[in-house]
């Protein structure tokens, strides 16, 4: 790993100032970035550690929204009674990320900003129609994710919080790649307060996280596992690697969606 200057500000404005510097890079929990640095795939001149900023941490309910600070760890979300009461799918999701040690460091902001095509959080953000709040603006999840490892975040922009609308029901069904524990194909299913159903899929798309319109339409009119049978999920646009073919992933989308429907009915 190349060397760099390390700074750990305790307030957000100092972090944003530090990130204005040439070659500065934000560090969340580091559970992806540190391995990346070890492989010399990134070489920042300054690393701005966000873990000392208390205002980025915490979980609170605001009316019909659940607000999770950008620096909140997966472990904190998994252990939160507020999250379990409001959006149980998020507890299922966070409690299956990596292992306990990864969950004690990794953060929601880091996961979303990295937008790994097999990461879990993007599926929840997209399925629930979350709003990603940064130090500059609010971004709808639909606009936030822009393909593999790509988001609309600009240099120096820090995710301060994620606002999730509280659905009527939610679940996360993960089919994990057992060695990496990332998603081979996983589905976040949300039944919204207005009765509409939203299906976020991660691990499968060649272009990263996506919603499946066909499944959403079928389940919005008939919320049953058998409704999934009638939907055709195309292998086109699914990723292909040594772990699974596009056809296998397309099949998994249906299997995991069915399991999701069964889990909340």
């Amino acid at each position, binding site marked *: 790993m*190349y060397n760099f200057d*390390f700074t750990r500000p305790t307030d957000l404005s100092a972090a944003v100032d530090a990130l204005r510097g040439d070659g500065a890079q934000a*560090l969340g929990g580091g*559970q992806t970035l*540190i391995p990346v640095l070890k492989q010399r795939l990134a070489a920042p001149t300054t690393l701005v550690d966000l873990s000392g900023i208390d205002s980025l941490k915490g979980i609170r309910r605001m009316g019909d929204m659940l607000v999770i600070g950008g620096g909140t760890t997966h472990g904190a979300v998994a252990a939160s009674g507020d999250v379990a009461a409001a959006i149980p799918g998020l507890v299922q999701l966070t409690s299956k990320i990596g*292992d*306990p*040690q*990864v969950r004690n*460091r990794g953060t929601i902001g880091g996961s979303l900003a990295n937008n790994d095509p097999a990461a879990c959080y993007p599926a929840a953000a997209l399925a629930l129609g979350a709003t990603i709040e940064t130090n500059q603006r609010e971004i709808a999840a639909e606009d936030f994710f822009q393909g593999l490892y790509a988001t609309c975040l600009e240099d120096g922009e820090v995710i301060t919080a994620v606002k999730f609308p509280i659905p009527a029901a939610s679940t996360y069904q993960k089919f994990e790649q057992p060695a990496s524990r990332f998603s081979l194909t996983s589905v976040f299913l949300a039944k919204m307060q207005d009765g509409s159903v939203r299906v976020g899929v991660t691990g499968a798309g060649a272009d990263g996280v996506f919603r499946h319109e066909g499944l959403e339409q079928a389940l919005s009119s008939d919320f049953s596992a058998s409704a999934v049978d009638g939907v055709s999920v195309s292998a086109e646009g699914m990723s292909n690697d040594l772990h699974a073919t596009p056809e296998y992933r397309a099949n998994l989308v249906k299997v995991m969606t069915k399991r999701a429907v069964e889990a909340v009915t």
Partner: protein
Amino acid sequence: MATISMTVNGKQVSGEAQGNTLLVEFLRQELKLTGTHVGCDTSQCGACVVHVNGESVKSCSVFASACDGGSVTTIEGMANDDGTLGVIQQAFQNEHGLQCGFCTPGMVMSIADMLKNNPQPTEAEIREGLKGNICRCTGYHNIVKAAQSAAATLAGAAQAAE
């Protein structure tokens, strides 16, 4: 180089760290606490697990400078004050929970954190809680038994204290 300070196993310590110095490098090379092992250096194996501010982490995937001012517990801090083995360590000996012993420091630290959050885990919860720790000798069965035995001992001690 910068000087960083932290509390390690209850003692205030200081040492030199570069920006890219990992916590495990600081512990082993600067503080000479070589009980914490580096197995893979890629966050897979868990031999380097220590506690930072009361939570288990992989010290190969945390920067030393991120722990400046914090509190760290390593395997060297798990023995009793008189130098005898702590409850979890003793359980590993009793249950033959180690063969080569390389993974054991990380296993002990992970189990300590697990039992703090869940004092009476089921076997499935123990196996799930040790997902981040790899052992290439034992086949895990005796490690799970050691965790169960330590949980029972700690529960008995807690009951006796009431």
